[in-house]
């Protein structure tokens, strides 16, 4: 690929992702400053911001979002590190959690941990409860349930990110050196490995933080509601019957973006602080272990991840329930009614169509983007171009989607499946790129040099070597991309004009309806579909390389 073609690939990728976001952001920014002709607002003013700050929940919601997003990110990172230090054996618990959408995890968890939930029903006879205890275990004011849900979803994502980053680091040698210095396990990790590792996972951690601060569907199901998280507060303003609240809603979207920028800055300061501390600690020259009981902490992340899976099992059980009242641990009567009655087939088809087409576009584009990176100067691609493509992952969806919707309508693009596919690509493509980036960099370049010496041109290297070497990573990326597409709620709702119904829009809509059996159907579909794709992704390299033992052993 020549430099011209490389720049061409990047331009196309940037147009796909950046143009809608910039347009959406610009419209939102203008509206937040009082310019929104549709409702007769046409002069610059800070009034929307003042109106926003006058909303009673404003400060509470802001603080709550920082608390839930921040704590969830810190815990997810900690848990992910604990998992990684335990070796790769845990991926069988983690892979399903990575695949299952946030909404499904949240729905399962909500039933599992509620005061009248599954755990409490099992304990009630032992504790002598006739009525469920009046405790806020879900939707608690401090947001613990939301944090729990976020941690269950984000830890596996970070484990993958850390594992692929570690493949680029001389971990074994570092450990040997640490051991020869007399360091204990914790000291080796904190002082030697983490300072090398963190710069490689900075981006995924920021994605997790941004997601935690702006998540809507999970916060609706698990989070508190008085005040709600900031993202939920803005969503409420956007859909409030009083149309003059749209302007403060846009102002809120801008504040949300600023909040994320500030939080990322805070994260970076924490990183600097930690590095400084680690260096100082290393200079002190202390040796040996620490008093933190690692063996006690280790099972905790596994148990918490287990809750996520048990919750999903609860969803499956609810989907085949007829009547299930407190305090029964299992349903009084079962029925396939929810599966037979609810019309889940059409939304399922729509979900699949959108996901498959998104993947067909996004996967080759992501690979071409990486190939283009190889042919561009290092100073341009890594620090500037790639972060631009990742912007949809750190920008709060509510911040630009409403504007994107307006821009699309102005261009005469009517609501339908095609614009929704584009909206999904805004997220699927960067995620696939993110998943492929590290394995691509970790590829053994000596093989490519050898091929070049034997006369293979760049395209032959791409198809004959890079693609096969990347097969496992590509399959994982496709599985992640599929899960990302299946899980999209706001983009499908806003850009589809409500007409495009997927299993996720149905699941969230029906979650406000209170019939757990039907919610169970859509939650089960949401959970099992990505799992199936993960299974396929896992088995494909095994099948393709069944006669190539060395390829099977490759860890990417």
């Amino acid at each position, binding site marked *: 690929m020549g430099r011209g073609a490389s720049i061409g690939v990047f331009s196309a990728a940037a147009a796909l992702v950046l143009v809608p976001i910039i347009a959406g952001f610009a419209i939102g920014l203008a509206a937040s400053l009082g310019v929104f002709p549709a409702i007769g607002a046409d002069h610059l003013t800070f009034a929307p911001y003042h109106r926003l700050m006058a909303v009673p929940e404003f400060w509470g919601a802001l603080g709550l979002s920082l608390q839930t997003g921040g704590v969830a990110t810190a815990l997810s990172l900690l848990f992910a590190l604990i998992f990684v230090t335990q070796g790769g054996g845990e991926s069988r618990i983690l892979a399903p959690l990575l695949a299952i959408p946030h909404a499904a995890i949240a729905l399962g968890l909500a039933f599992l941990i*509620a005061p009248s939930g599954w755990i409490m029903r099992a304990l009630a006879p032992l504790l002598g409860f006739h009525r469920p205890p009046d405790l806020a275990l879900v939707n608690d004011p401090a947001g613990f349930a939301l944090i729990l849900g976020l941690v269950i979803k984000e830890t596996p994502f970070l484990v993958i990110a850390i594992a692929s980053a570690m493949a680029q680091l001389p971990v074994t040698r570092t450990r040997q050196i640490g051991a020869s210095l007399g360091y204990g396990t914790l000291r080796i990790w904190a002082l030697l490995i983490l300072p090398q590792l963190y710069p490689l996972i900075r981006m995924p951690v920021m994605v997790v933080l941004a997601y935690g601060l702006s998540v809507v569907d999970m916060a609706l199901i698990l989070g508190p509601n008085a005040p709600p998280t900031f993202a939920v507060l803005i969503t409420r303003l956007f*859909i409030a019957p009083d149309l003059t609240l749209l302007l403060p809603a846009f102002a809120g979207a801008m504040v949300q973006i600023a909040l994320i920028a500030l939080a990322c800055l805070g994260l970076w300061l924490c990183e600097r602080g930690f590095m400084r501390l680690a260096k100082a600690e290393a200079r002190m020259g202390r040796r040996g272990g620490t008093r933190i009981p690692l063996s006690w902490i280790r099972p905790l992340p596994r148990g918490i991840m287990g809750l996520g899976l048990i919750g999903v099992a609860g969803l499956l059980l609810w989907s085949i329930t007829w009547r299930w009242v407190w305090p029964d641990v299992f349903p009084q009567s079962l029925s396939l009614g929810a599966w037979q009655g609810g019309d889940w087939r059409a939304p399922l088809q729509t979900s699949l169509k959108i996901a498959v087409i998104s993947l067909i576009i996004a996967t080759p584009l992501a690979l071409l983007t990486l190939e283009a990176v190889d042919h561009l100067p290092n100073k341009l691609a890594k620090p500037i171009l790639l972060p631009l493509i990742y912007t949809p992952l750190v920008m709060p969806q509510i911040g630009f989607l409403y504007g994107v919707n307006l821009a699309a309508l102005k261009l005469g693009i009517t609501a339908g499946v095609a614009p929704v596919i584009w909206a999904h690509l805004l997220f699927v493509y960067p995620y696939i790129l993110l998943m492929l980036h590290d394995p691509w960099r970790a590829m053994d370049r000596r093989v490519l040099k050898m091929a070049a010496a034997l006369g293979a041109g760049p395209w032959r290297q791409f198809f004959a070597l890079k693609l096969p070497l990347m097969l496992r990573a590509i399959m994982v990326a496709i599985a992640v991309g599929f899960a990302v597409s299946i899980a999209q709620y706001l983009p499908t709702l806003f850009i589809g004009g409500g007409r495009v119904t997927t299993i996720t829009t149905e699941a969230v809509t029906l979650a406000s309806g209170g019939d757990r059996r039907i919610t169970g159907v859509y939650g089960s579909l949401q959970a099992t579909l990505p799992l199936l794709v993960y299974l396929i992704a896992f088995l494909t390299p095994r099948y393709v390389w069944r006669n190539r033992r060395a390829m099977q052993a490759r860890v990417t």
Partner: protein
Amino acid sequence: MIKRLLPILALMMATQTQAQTWQDTVDAARGQTVYWHAWGGDPRTNSYIDWVDAQMQARFGIAVEHVPLTDTAEAVTRVLSERAAGQNTGGAVDLIWINGPNFLAMKEQDLLFGPFVKRLPNARFVDLSPDAPASVDFTVPVDGLEAPWRLAKFVFIHDSARAPNPPQSMGELLDWARDNPGRFTHPDPANFMGASFLKQALISLVDTPAILQNPVSEADYTDLTAPLWAWYDALRPLMWRGGETFPENESIQARLLNDGEIDITMSFDPSYVAAAINLGLLPDTVRVFVPEGGTLGNISFMAIPYNAAHVEGAQVVADFLLSPEAQAHMQNIDNLGAFSVLDPALMDAEAAAFFADLPQSPALPKLADLGPTLLEPHASWMTAIAEDWAARYAR
């Protein structure tokens, strides 16, 4: 520019409509797909809409596509953003299941098609006199801009096994909550049902409820609502989760009743309990009760946006929903169980026959058990109370 054009456009549409006979409308509607935006959280309503779709296809060659909403305001926002983009024809929304505040917002912003209600042949079964419930939506005059389709009346719901003696007034509710702490709650007042509960309480606690018919701005708000907040301050700590969190809506609250977390919930649909028991959603022991003095009642309406792509089809659907056959099918608790908006006095024998043999249930209240229907306060009260509540209790 758009703003200046709108009245002209509206005028053009109005003259066009008048020129058409009803048969012209029915003919033009054939082959259209009507996108009906309606709250999608209630499976019974969803399957009723599916039934309407099948009937419309068979009778009029019109397809009805249900666009499920989590909140009706989504449809309003949609129409608004279309106007922002200059899309004044061919809009995505054809028909909206709408209620007071959303109707008021759309009417004030000139986002509605019509008037069309008087054109509908089946409107002859509805009492459309100026003060009738179908002519006023939360004290806002309907002006023929929305067609009625189902009746809503506020009822309380209790589990007769766990709470055999439910309170008979708002004052008694406080005593009941003292005896049963943590067993009562109401939906979040950001939600329609939650705000309605506060309104119901306000009406019962003010001396002269008639004042509430005027906009908030014309009354002494602080003075009038003082008894409400005094009562609520006493009640709140006695509620589920100490009044710190609230269920999102009445469906979630009904689930809490099924889960045994609370003993009392509420609904705007008197037949909800009978239908929910049949569906396995509530225990058999759950019943409806209404406090002394009666409760709020209102009518659910259908509106057509000014830029709807299928105006004819939307009107034919609105008319079919008002037909005695559709209304009786709707009132049947095996189907939807929502009370009909038709006036028995206006129905002929043929129309009345559809209602003759509807099934009964022990959990289904008789119309007489429901007590008097109280007039909805002016729409501004709901917004004012909900905002005040948020300021007081949501930190």
